[in-house]
């Protein structure tokens, strides 16, 4: 396989990894797969691109605004949609699944209405005059930014989970929600923090990756789906598992399209998802503790 494909595997892999990381954080905090993360990433990317091209904002202001919008959407989803429904129907998965699927659809329509329904090219954060050569592959500025920001987010998040108050509490709730509730942890606030951090990660991932592939108001669905599969493949055993899951899924998709043509990307994803869900739902890096 030409080495340039490896570059795109890393780029797409980092994007999937970040969405999967967002899933993991919300899974820890609220025990729940946040299917609306994809549209938040899309909304942030589309918003940033729109504000730069249509409203001529400087890039940094647009990106920060996009990220803030993603965080706000995630928090609003928890407070106004998921929490009231889960309070009414305790312990049933289907109502909250329908709630996030409806949110996914609503956020996509909101973006389509506010930013228009035509696709936007993403705005690169940094360009190299002469990109780095690596074998025959060419590595541009945005690629370096993607890898750098992704690693930074993973490292910062690992530290946040390790040292900060809310980070430790989040790990505790993810580890044993019943214990956290019994001991009087502020579970509601921890949940909200998880939704906010999940929204933050997705909000950064959107405009980070959109320079590579462009974005439109309907991209959110595939972001959510592929992020979810990356999470399941990687497993929930450690904070780094989503990174592995994202890279593996990206490699699989790019190899399939290279070998069998672009339609096979969807076929390969379907088959990989079906296999993992059926035989290894706990993923590669599962949680193992001696009971």
């Amino acid at each position, binding site marked *: 396989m030409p080495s340039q494909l490896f570059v795109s595997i890393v780029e797409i892999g980092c994007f999937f990894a970040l969405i999967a990381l967002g899933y993991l954080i919300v899974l820890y905090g609220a025990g729940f797969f946040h299917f609306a993360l994809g549209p938040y990433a899309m909304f942030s990317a589309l918003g940033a691109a729109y504000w730069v091209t249509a409203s001529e904002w400087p890039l940094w202001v647009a990106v920060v605004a996009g990220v803030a919008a993603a965080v706000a959407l995630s928090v609003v989803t928890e407070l106004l949609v998921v929490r009231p429904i889960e309070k009414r129907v305790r312990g049933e998965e289907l109502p909250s699944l*329908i*709630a996030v*699927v*409806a949110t996914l659809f609503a956020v996509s*329509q909101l973006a389509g209405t506010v930013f228009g329904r035509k696709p936007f090219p993403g705005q690169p954060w940094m360009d190299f005059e002469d990109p780095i050569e690596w074998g025959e592959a060419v590595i541009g500025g945005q690629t370096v930014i993607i890898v750098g920001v992704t690693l930074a987010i993973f490292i910062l998040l690992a530290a946040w989970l390790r040292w900060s108050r809310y980070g430790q509490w989040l790990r505790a709730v993810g580890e044993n929600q019943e214990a956290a509730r019994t001991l009087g942890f502020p579970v509601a606030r921890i949940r909200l923090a998880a939704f906010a951090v999940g929204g933050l990660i997705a909000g950064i991932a959107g405009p980070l990756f959109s320079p590579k592939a462009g974005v439109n108001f309907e991209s959110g*669905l595939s972001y959510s789906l592929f992020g979810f599969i990356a999470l399941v493949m990687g497993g929930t055993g450690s904070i780094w598992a989503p990174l592995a899951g994202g890279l593996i899924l990206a490699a699989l998709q790019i190899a399939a399209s290279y070998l069998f043509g672009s*339609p096979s990307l*969807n076929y390969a994803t379907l088959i990989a*998802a079906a296999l993992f*869900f059926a035989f290894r739902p706990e993923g590669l890096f599962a949680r193992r503790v001696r009971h």
Partner: protein
Amino acid sequence: MRQGGSAWVEPIVTLALAIAAMAAVHGSPYLEAVALLTCTYAFIALGMYLPFIMGGALSMAYNAYLGVGAYALALIAGRSDWDLAWSLPIGMLIAAATAVLLGFATRRLSGFYLAAVTLLFGIAFTTWLVDAESVTGGSGGLQGLRVPVFAGRPLSNSTLVMLTILAVWIVALALSRLRNSPFGVAVRARRRAAIAVESCGIPVSTLTLVSLGLGAAVSSVGGSLFAVANHAILPESFAVDLVFLCIFMPLLGGQDRPWGAVLGAILVVTFTFQLTFFKETGSLFFSLAVLLVLVIAPRGVLGYVLIGLQKLWKGTRGGETRHG
């Protein structure tokens, strides 16, 4: 399990509404087109009613079952001289088989996992429609489909509309009966107490597969109808976002009766295509309405209408309660 006289109120009232709808759209090509689109959506929503609303299995591959119905008709129309009526049973069989196979492959999955895999199947199906040039005509789709013959004469659009509205009424009534039958009760019990249904000797996995099969067959009829009405089909018509609309129809319309799914279809078409006021923002308004219903009014529009009617009915009948 019927309660005396009231067993006939539902069929009569709904038939009257159906006939009224036929009359309302008759003669106006634009209204007939809107009616046909509404009926297509209604078929998908009714197809989801049994496995999803009653059974609680959120399989999201309904765009595929719609596509199977449509392409079955288009292929029969384009590549054979069979009577187009054959496309209904063939489409239904293929869709049911697809649903059962997919259901069997995902039998151990539920909730988020089931939704994700079936969504992926829907996406892969749409990709296949574009990819399999020889079979599906690729991105150009299949054009110029011959007009079906009905009672010796080519089927006029007006007749098609009337037949279709009647078909929707029949399917919805059948599902309404099924909902209160022992089979329907077992499926509804599975949604929140699957372990209990299993402990009564009923294999829940079989119950789910039967529900999925029947649901897919009903949805495929919508596909065949769509192909006949448009005389041509394109892969884009069967993309996954259609599934989102169809999940929300019964939720917005009202979950307690299949008629809620039909009402949901009417509301969707009204929001997204019909009213100029909504124009671009139609789907947004619809999606926000769905969220509102989910959070605040889970019984949906029809649910609260019926509660209102019951109160009215009770008011006039001096307080004697009647179970609808």
